[in-house]
């Protein structure tokens, strides 16, 4: 059969539907295989979604990276003001806010509840603070770090503190998470390959006689291979659809508690699910793994069957 001739396409359609029909003939064992593939694919997919959500939450914080310059106590207000305008002229810096010791004290009094205790102090122990907000394009941990070092070197500055360290730690933890998901994904993909491969191997053995007869009456290897490859296709596709369903059901179950939690943090954040792209990627991955597993099984096992 010439590729893309009408007969070739018909042959493929026949094999596609034929393999689907074969699966329907044994619904229980087919469903179990599909479920195993679905669970194997759902695990890394679900973890990926959770990571995405964490990233979404922290992305908001990343943009608010700022630096607090605690000035030395003996710097006069005029000098602070001139430093502020000098800093604002720097290209890396978007804005600088001056918090006078008094403002700082009042803010602290309002928010801390130590009002009475603070009143008993004879003088304000708080230093003047310049809050530096870097430009967005410098919002990179390394650039920020070097900026912080330069600020620290200024004679008026007692301590320059980047309010980002915990975000960096979070990112480091999330990087570990991402690696973990990747490793898990690779391992479970391997599992899917093996599951599909083994299922197809059994299917081939069950149809040994049929394959022999087909070879005897002139079937090409491609013709015999085709329905088994489509088995892999269907298993992969149905497995991916099962995984999609599992992930979305799990997200629906989680969404209540998550929105309650985010209300406690005064944010209206909701759990974002699998987007269209991720869903398509999941389906593609499933189909690809199914085909690959089938291909591996078919190559070896069909060669062994030769008519007597």
């Amino acid at each position, binding site marked *: *059969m010439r590729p893309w001739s009408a007969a070739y396409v018909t042959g493929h359609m026949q094999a596609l539907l034929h393999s689907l029909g074969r699966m329907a003939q044994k619904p229980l064992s087919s469903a179990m295989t599909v479920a195993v593939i679905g669970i194997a694919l759902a695990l890394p997919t679900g973890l990926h979604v959770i990571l995405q959500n964490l990233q979404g939450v922290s992305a908001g914080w990343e943009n608010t990276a700022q630096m607090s310059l605690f000035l030395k106590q003996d710097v006069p207000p005029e000098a602070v003001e001139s430093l502020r305008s000098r800093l604002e002229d720097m290209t890396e810096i978007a804005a600088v806010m001056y918090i006078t010791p008094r403002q700082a004290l009042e803010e602290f009094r309002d928010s801390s509840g130590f009002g009475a205790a603070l009143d008993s102090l004879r003088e304000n122990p708080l230093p003047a603070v310049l809050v530096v907000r870097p430009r967005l394009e410098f919002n990179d941990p390394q650039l920020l770090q070097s900026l912080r070092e330069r600020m620290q070197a200024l004679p008026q500055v007692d301590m320059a503190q980047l309010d980002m360290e915990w975000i960096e730690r979070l990112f480091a933890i999330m990087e570990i998470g991402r690696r973990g998901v990747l490793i898990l994904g690779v391992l479970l993909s391997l599992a899917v390959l093996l599951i599909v491969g083994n299922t197809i191997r059994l299917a081939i053995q069950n149809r040994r006689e049929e394959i022999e007869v087909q070879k*005897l009456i*002139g079937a090409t290897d491609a*013709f015999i291979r085709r329905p088994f490859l489509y088995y892999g296709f269907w298993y992969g596709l149905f497995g991916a659809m099962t995984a999609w369903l599992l992930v979305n059901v799990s997200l629906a179950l989680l969404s209540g508690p998550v929105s309650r939690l985010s209300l406690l943090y005064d944010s209206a954040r909701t759990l974002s699910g699998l987007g269209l792209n991720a869903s398509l990627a999941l389906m593609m991955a499933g189909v690809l793994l199914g085909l690959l597993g089938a291909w591996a099984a078919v190559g070896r096992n069909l060669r062994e069957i030769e008519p007597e």
Partner: protein
Amino acid sequence: MIHFDNVGKRYAGGREALAGVSFHLEEGEMAFLTGHSGAGKSTLLKLVAMLERASYGQVFFNGQNITRIGKRRIPYLRREIGIIFQNYKLLNDRTVFDNVALPLVIAGVPYQEIRRRVRAALDKVGLLDKEKRFPVMLSGGEQQRVGVARAVVNKPPLLLADEPTGNLDPALSAEMMRLFEQFNQVGVTVLIASHDLDLISRMNHRVFTLEQGRMIADGRPVRAR
């Protein structure tokens, strides 16, 4: 159609199934291949059907040297040979229609055409009314006729039959042979391996006799009717 030139086949283990066999079966001829079991009948048929390769000598089919033919070309050549087996080799989970249609499906024939040709083949063997049955619902003779219909459905120039009457009673066997003669009369070359000497002797066709891998006779039966 089939030409053997000093062909031998030695199996792993040293058993020599065929030794120095030469013959020429012309296009449109009908011939029997006979001999005791183990004389090499099946091996000879397997060499023609490209299920085995000769250890030495040359095998020609339809003018082509198929002795060392590439594996990829074998399926296409097999489509030119209709093979009938002693144990029918039908697929029991498919209907009679689907069994007979298989060679056409493999060859990529359009569905309408398949319908027409399968019915023609089933009509020829007298089983048109059984197309929706499954093989196990049929008698041995009927199953064998399904096998014949499958072998002829894509009109191959050569029919090979390996003990086609081995499981049939004498009346059915004679009927089966008449069916082969009908195909032969429309130009199909037929080669039948059989040890039913009684039946063979009643038909006036060429007979090849094998004994221990050697061809000891090639001619007409002595007591032709």
